[in-house]
């Protein structure tokens, strides 16, 4: 009995141990040692990824509070890998901070919250995980204490996320009132899709749409992404969004499974509007971080479209896309982070003629942008292919055609940056930048991820077999 708890909660226990170790280190006022701390965190994160592939029995713990199965563990491994890369790419900035240990603790506790959130089998657990994942992020977004932009980002993040969770709670209370339970399983058997439940569902979906920044609830995204430190921006755009998408699937398929005639049109509408609006806004951005923010909004649209497919295919394609998306987006953010740290600027002009001075960095950014746009040699193409074929498999051809047309539109702005790097004359002179070791690790992992994942069909098959139990 006890072993079951230990094995089900192993990743959460590992993270809690790590957070407590950092806390003890802080309280004992041991002299700050960034490299030692980073090593400790990396060892813990990598070993957590390792133990997430260990033999696992699926089932519930603590009544229906905590669900665990191999898909959920694989999703956790993706989030852990993303956090590891974020630590690598942001380390040059982090180690200069006076409150380095607090930064790590807050970042890891949001990760802990996300782990609890994606294995929740109950709206109570889900809500607590969600808040643990959100509240520290607001503190992290405003971590540059002297920077006005950064505190503005933190403020916008906490206001919009508190607003979103209030709407979510209002929806949960209606669902509780009509079904008499907050656990997903009981809701699934008691729900009949009457109007009160539809209203409650719409409120819950609104809360989710805020978290994954789907249009029309995306207003905070670009502001927060621009103001927050690059490490946090990349974390928000990849890990935080990934966790929200991962938990949306069980909520829809399990708890609201009987209401699929309600949620599928809503999701298709949401995804179409998100893809179109995200594209149009991305066209006119002058700052690289804002540009990537709107690119993230568009990707969220494709993910929502993928979710509408049949359960197993949709689950597999979404998890597979997130796996690729982590490497492509973090690859782009590593280059942005290196350039912003060295030049202090993040407008697109900095990237003009980058190939002449920094060929390696521009090749990595080229690869990452190709993957985000979905151009074949890069893995992003396969990710989008599976998402769209999942939606097409369920027969939503119009939405798939709109999404494909928008993929062509998005080529314009992705390739515009590639053109600037390779063809245009430099605006300012940047000397040859030498990335630090941690940044080189991050660049290397991202490049490998982008190039390799698309060419190993076994990875998709593995995910597909797992997703039978989503």
């Amino acid at each position, binding site marked *: 009995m006890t072993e079951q708890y230990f094995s089900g909660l192993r990743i959460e226990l590992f993270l809690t141990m790590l957070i407590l170790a950092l806390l003890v280190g802080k309280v004992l006022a041991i002299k700050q040692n960034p490299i030692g701390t980073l090593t400790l965190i990396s060892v813990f994160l990598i070993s957590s990824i390792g133990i997430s592939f260990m033999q696992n029995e699926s089932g519930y713990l603590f009544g229906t509070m905590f669900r665990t199965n191999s898909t959920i563990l694989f999703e956790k491994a993706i989030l852990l890998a993303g956090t590891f890369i974020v630590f690598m790419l942001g380390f040059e900035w982090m180690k200069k901070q006076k409150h380095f240990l607090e930064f790590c603790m807050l970042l890891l506790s949001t990760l802990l919250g996300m782990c609890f959130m994606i294995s929740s089998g109950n*709206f*109570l657990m889900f*809500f*607590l995980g969600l*808040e643990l994942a959100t*509240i*520290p992020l*607001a*503190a992290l977004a*405003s971590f540059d*204490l*002297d920077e*006005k*932009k950064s*505190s*503005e*980002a*933190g*403020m*916008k993040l*906490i*206001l919009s996320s*508190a*607003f979103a*969770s*209030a*709407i979510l*709670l*209002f929806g*949960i*209370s*209606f669902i*509780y*009132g009509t079904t*008499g*339970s*907050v656990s997903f399983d009981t809701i699934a058997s008691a729900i009949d899709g009457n109007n009160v439940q539809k209203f409650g569902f719409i409120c819950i979906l609104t809360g989710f749409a805020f978290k994954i920044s789907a249009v029309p609830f995306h207003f905070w995204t*670009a*502001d927060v992404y*621009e*103001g927050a430190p690059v490490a946090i921006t990349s974390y928000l755009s990849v890990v935080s969004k990934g966790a929200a998408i991962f938990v949306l699937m069980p909520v829809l398929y399990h708890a609201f499974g009987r209401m699929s005639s309600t949620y599928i049109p809503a999701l298709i509408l949401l995804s179409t509007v998100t893809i179109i609006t995200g594209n149009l*806004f991305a066209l006119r951005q002058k700052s690289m971080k*804002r540009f990537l923010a709107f690119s993230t909004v568009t990707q969220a649209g494709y993910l929502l479209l993928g979710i509408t497919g049949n359960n197993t295919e949709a689950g597999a394609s979404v998890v597979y896309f997130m796996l690729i998306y982590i490497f492509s987006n973090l690859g782009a953010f590593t280059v942005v982070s290196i350039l912003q740290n060295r030049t202090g600027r993040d407008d697109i002009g900095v990237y003009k003629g980058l190939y002449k001075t920094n060929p390696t960095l521009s090749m990595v950014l080229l690869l990452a942008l190709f993957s985000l746009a979905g151009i074949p040699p890069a893995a992003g193409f396969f990710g989008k292919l599976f998402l769209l074929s999942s939606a097409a498999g369920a027969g939503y051809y119009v939405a798939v055609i709109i999404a494909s047309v928008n993929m062509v539109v998005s080529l314009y702005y992705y390739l515009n940056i590639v053109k600037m790097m390779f063809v245009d004359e430099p605006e300012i002179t940047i000397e040859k930048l030498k990335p630090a070791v941690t940044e080189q690790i991050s660049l290397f992992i991202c490049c490998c991820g982008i190039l390799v994942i698309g060419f190993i069909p076994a990875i998709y098959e593995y995910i597909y077999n797992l997703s039978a139990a989503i």
Partner: protein
Amino acid sequence: MDATQIIKTIPIEHYVILSTILFAIGVTGVLMRRNAIIIFMSIELMLNAATLLLTAFSTYRSDTPGQVFVFFIMVVAAAEVAVGLAIIVMIYRNIKSIDINVLNKLKW
């Protein structure tokens, strides 16, 4: 007559209507007001609407999950406000105002 029965003398619809009104006032406040602290107050109002609804449903169904949920909502709301107010203090130090219209450095 015990407390549960007193509560049940008011029909459930009235609780639903009251909390929907509270929620609507909260949403309007968030969208219309420009002062960060008043926005936080409005969000608290929305949370209280959800809390009231959960408690009412829980009493009418004579079960506990709803009321347990309420305690967690209170704790989380307090944590949210603590972080939010800390950020507001920081902003006030930087720009001597908490009007969110002043926060227009980041615009599309």
